[in-house]
């Protein structure tokens, strides 16, 4: 029973840790499916987290924090769009620039506004997205096996956790069952086909990066106001890149994206769990190894096991009408 409880706890933290990855990976999915590569997920997420922390600290409201995060993150997504869609700049360079701007400006602004070494003041309960307890969670917790699963694993998460997982079928539905999704997928494969069909390639791609901005804003909000109680400098800690790995790993498909994020979340949870605990046979595993595992796994699996991940054909290429 002890092992079972450990397992439930492990899965519970897997869910929590995979949520920011899931928001960010779905964010990247919208942009990259439209043909705009985005390695600036990390930066947008970080800026969103800072905006959420700052606004919630000042206003005391989690919802104000969320709105601020989404606005800031969408603004940065539009900067990326302006550089790479309107001005046909290099998408990788633009994305890297976004990451640097976010990393630098969050610390400078944080220090200037709050003078706490780049962090934002801790917010109280009203400024956070607290846990939601599903009905009967306490009553059922005593039921063997199913009880803990329900009360620990399904219940007791913040609103954003449920939102993240609901966004998976929603994204699938948008992508494959709506006009917008059809055009989005088309513009990522062959923008000329979209253009000659009488649709604006630029406007379509802008809408895609706006979706990305909204979702990275949610990812940032989750980090600052659900997982923590305020912004801490560099709090994204490479999650934007892991999300990108998950996106490639899942071949730009929504449901596999969720499983990839859960896998990477699990590795993260597992590495925290076994920190300092020697494993049988192997002995003590360095934390650094566990932290590197998602990346190693991505390379290994992409190299051999899941086949080639073929990105959207027009990805990374600005659209220019041919002469």
């Amino acid at each position, binding site marked *: 029973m002890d092992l079972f409880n450990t397992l439930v706890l492990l899965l519970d933290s897997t869910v929590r840790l995979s949520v920011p990855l899931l928001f960010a990976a779905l964010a990247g999915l919208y942009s990259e499916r439209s043909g705009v590569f985005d390695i600036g997920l990390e930066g947008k997420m970080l800026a969103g987290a800072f905006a959420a922390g700052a606004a919630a600290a000042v206003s005391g409201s989690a919802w104000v924090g969320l709105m601020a995060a989404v606005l800031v993150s969408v603004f940065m997504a539009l900067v990326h769009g302006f550089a790479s869609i309107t001005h046909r700049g290099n998408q990788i360079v633009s994305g890297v620039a976004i990451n640097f701007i976010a990393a630098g400006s969050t610390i400078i602004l944080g220090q200037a506004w709050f003078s706490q070494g780049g962090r934002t003041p801790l917010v109280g309960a009203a400024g956070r997205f607290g846990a939601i307890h599903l009905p009967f969670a306490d009553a059922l917790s005593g039921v063997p096996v199913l009880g803990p699963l329900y009360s620990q694993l399904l219940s007791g998460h913040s609103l954003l956790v449920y939102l993240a997982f609901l966004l998976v079928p929603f994204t699938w539905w948008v992508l494959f069952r709506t006009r917008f999704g*059809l055009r989005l997928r088309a513009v990522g494969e062959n923008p000329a086909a979209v253009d000659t069909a009488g649709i604006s390639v630029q406007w379509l791609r802008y809408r895609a990066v706006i979706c990305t901005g909204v979702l990275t804003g949610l990812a940032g909000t989750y980090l600052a106001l659900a997982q923590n109680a305020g912004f801490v400098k560099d709090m994204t800690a490479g999650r934007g890149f892991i999300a990108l790995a998950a996106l490639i790993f899942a071949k730009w498909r929504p449901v596999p994206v969720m499983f990839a994020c859960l896998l990477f979340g699990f590795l993260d949870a597992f590495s925290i769990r076994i920190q300092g605990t020697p494993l049988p046979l192997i002995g003590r595993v360095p934390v650094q190894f566990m932290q590197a595992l998602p990346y190693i796994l991505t390379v290994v699996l992409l190299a051999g096991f899941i086949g080639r991940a073929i990105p959207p054909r027009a990805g990374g290429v600005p659209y220019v009408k041919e002469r």
Partner: protein
Amino acid sequence: MAEAAIELKGISKNFGSVRANRDIDLKIAPGTIHGIIGENGAGKSTLMSILYGFYQADRGEIFVNGERAVIHASNDAIARGIGMVHQHFMLVHNFTVLENVILGAEGEPLLKTSIAKARSELERLERDYGLEVDPDAVIEDLPVGLQQRVEILKALFRGADILILDEPTGVLTPAEAEHLFRILRQLKDEGKTIVLITHKLREIMAVTDNVSVMRQGALVATRKTEETTVEELAELMVGRRVLLRVEKGDAHPGDFVLSVKNLTVEDMRGVKMVDDVSLDVRAGEIVGIAGVAGNGQTELLETITGMRKAVSGTVTLDGAPVELTGEADPTDLRRRGMAHVPEDRHNMGLVLPFEENENAILGYHWQDKYVNGPFLDIEAIRRDAQEKIEKYDIRPTDARLKTANFSGGNQQKIVLAREMEQDPKVLIVGQPTRGVDVGAIEFIHKRLIDMRDQGKAVLLVSVELDEIRSLSDRILVMFAGRIVGERGPDATEGELGLLMAGVEEKEAAE
């Protein structure tokens, strides 16, 4: 007379200093097939792109069915009932036929109902016009002929009454092209107006009612097709008389230079692409290989030039064997006097982003005259390129220009100049005039005859039967990987056509 379906008045368009369209007036009568013919770069595609809203004209007016039309973008053209089948298909490769057809014309935000509606509409169109395609097939699995049908269906689905086709037969086999023409005639009978852009005179004569000729951005003449001739149109296109039949003296064949014995080549799936082929090419003769595209010619060329692995057989160049493991050293083959003009100049013949002078030595860059110790001798290379530009009449005459900015015909001349100027023993040429305009074709044909007269052995592969017949001293016909017959240069088109279609020698003789 009824209103013109399309009337253009004084259309002009410049790209920088290039005057792509100059003051063009054109009337296209409704319910006709109107051909627009001209060399590459004559401005045909630009004119049609203006009509379809891809570009804006600098000056001029467009009238559709008598009404003045302002066409800013493709959807303005679509709204006016204009549809276009582009030279390079505008299809999403991993979408189904149905998805491609509805893209941009979905009607409502959710796909479910629009797909159902589109399916029945598509079935009706397919039935009415004989344009059968499986609506659920994925584009990349379809042969090009069917992909083109999808493009036509796309236009019809959007309610197009005026259909523009830009070089539609460039990618089609003769049979597919014939089928396309049948479809076009049927569309015309239904009252549709069709604009056919091409540089192939034969197609104009076969299918159009009227024809307009463009030259250097200007519309130089419009004729009723039945009142004009191929010769007149060719002359209008290039502005001077064109020899459609190359003049050449008798061949004086010498020693055997290239010998292929019992060559068999398989593709990755193990299917025999070249099946027990033997042939000889002697110095001072042109041996032409005729055949419908995809009957093993490409594989034969690639194997002879050392790029593809043979299953069995031998190839001898000037008495010494050519390595057939697929890893022959191309530099070694060039040293031994084998020059190769590949079929696909964009992927194999040239590096398009390079400057002209760099492409002009590519593959021969190791030669003493181009190097200075470990460095390239840039001066010598540019001088050399400039000489070739003059000798081969390559335009524009700028050796520093990016190769991609040359027209198809001039790009081909760059490759030919590079290979021919190396004084090879044997010249292997694939599709020398594919996508090349009439003026350049004439020039290229003359140069090939010159090579022969200088005593080179020339192996020519072409899907253009006219080209094979007018250049070759001996004609071999390839079908399903085998050489199915040999004929002299006086063989009739019908005779060769039967062989190309795989009709056995004995039957053909009857």
